């Protein structure tokens, strides 16, 4: 057993071209999970480092990190959580930066269900509207702002179903159990081409970055409305180096790579804005 393990380690060392290849434990906001998988492949090819990725709601990661979770980098869905972690001494001061600006969409798995103005929101033609938990996920809070801006808070309250993260909200809509939902544009793009506002996607050629299809053969990517930025506070998504990763060069390399033009191209291809 031990010998087998040794030869396995030996083989792994041979396979790895980079002598300093290391592993990074990354906690990533659910909306950025698919883009990060793409960035991760390019990052590993360029540096030899590998990522161990856990995806979930940013608020949940905060409590886990405070409780001593072994994450080295947090790629959050907001700017507040990384700042809070820095001020509380759980993250390295000055390491936080905005890697993406999130875009909110109103999405349905049904084609032609969501119109280009989002008028369907006030139509009453649906039983359930999925959002992410507004207390734990910034996209959930942004969704509530949009509903309020449309003056529909009271009307829609009984129709709201809350996913514990934006990933579950997406899943509720993807399975058709909720006809509509506020999700991240990146998730819809990752699921494949959808009908919607193509301007946000930076031209048709960058439309389908080849993410995994959601429920192959079943629900199509449907239709969506790209919510105008004026209706909700900007979702600045920050990444930060956590104290656990302070001594890991691979963790620092990952954060540097996220700022590189190659990574930004991938990030933009999923519909995110980039901090100018």
């Amino acid at each position, binding site marked *: 057993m031990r010998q087998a393990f040794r030869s396995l380690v030996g083989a792994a060392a041979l396979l790895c071209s980079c002598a300093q290849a290391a592993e990074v434990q990354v906690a990533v906001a659910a909306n950025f999970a698919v883009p990060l998988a793409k960035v991760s492949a390019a990052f590993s090819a360029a540096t030899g480092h590998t990522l161990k990725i856990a995806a979930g709601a940013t608020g949940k990661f905060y409590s886990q990190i405070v409780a001593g979770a072994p994450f080295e980098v947090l790629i959050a869905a907001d700017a507040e959580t990384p700042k809070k972690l820095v001020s509380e001494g759980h993250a390295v001061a000055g390491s936080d930066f905005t890697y993406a600006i999130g875009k909110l969409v109103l999405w349905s798995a049904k084609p032609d269900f969501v119109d280009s103005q989002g008028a369907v929101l006030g139509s009453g033609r649906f039983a359930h509207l999925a959002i992410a938990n507004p207390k734990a996920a910034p996209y959930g809070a942004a969704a509530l702002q949009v509903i309020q801006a449309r003056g529909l808070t009271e009307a829609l309250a009984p129709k709201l*179903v809350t996913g*514990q993260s934006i990933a579950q909200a997406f899943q509720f809509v993807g399975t058709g159990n*909720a006809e509509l939902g506020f999700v991240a544009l990146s998730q819809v793009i990752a699921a494949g081409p959808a009908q919607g506002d193509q301007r946000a996607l930076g031209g048709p050629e960058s439309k389908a970055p080849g993410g995994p299809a959601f429920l192959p053969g079943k629900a199509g990517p449907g239709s969506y409305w790209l919510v105008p930025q004026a209706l909700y506070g900007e979702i600045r998504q920050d990444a930060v180096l956590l104290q656990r990763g302070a001594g890991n060069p691979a963790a620092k390399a990952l954060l540097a790579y996220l700022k590189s033009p190659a990574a930004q191209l991938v990030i933009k291809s999923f519909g995110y804005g980039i901090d100018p």
Partner: protein
Amino acid sequence: MTADDWSAVRLTAQLAALTTLLLLVAGTPVAWWLARTRSRLKPLVAAAVAMPIVLPPTVLGFYLLLLMGPQGPIGQLTQALGLGRLPFSFAGLVVASVLYSMPFVVQPLQQAFEAIPERTLEAAATLRAGPWDRFFSVVLPLARPGFLTASVLGFAHTVGEFGVVLMIGGNIPGVTRVLSVAIYGHVEALEFESAHRLAAGMVVFAMAVLVALYMLGRPTGRAAQGLR
């Protein structure tokens, strides 16, 4: 405690009570059949009943979400009947809980029924008691401790349900936000004080229920002597 938290407590109690009631009604014939049958299908049925003990709640939640969804067979049936769809509804939680807590009701009943000697029933038969009479005036009194255990376990296990509810509930206050989900929400939002209040209540409840259960488990009275 906030009104929201109280509504979660009420909802949980309603869900657990309704689930237990349905399981006692539906589980009794199943348990009786399992206790008395010589059918070759018995291991198959017993295994199906016991499945929720082994399977992670996510498996049940996943399949229920697909089956009860708009494209799923159950979803299409409920829609055709004009009942709407089950996910995100209280009725959906009841369906899920009945499946999830089934072994905790059926198995104690089955054990209680198995402990009743065949001779007792035969003696009743010679006294011209019909099958229904035998069941209600002989089996039910003898199996009373089994019914108590089944009710307590079925109720408590439904109260302790989390994964399935999280997957098909949608966390709607007053409809699907049960205690376990409310606690999870408080923890996620870092409202630890509210989480503590509910969580501590659950600890006290679980302890009380289990103490009661183990006290019931002691053989006392004539009925229990007949069992052992």
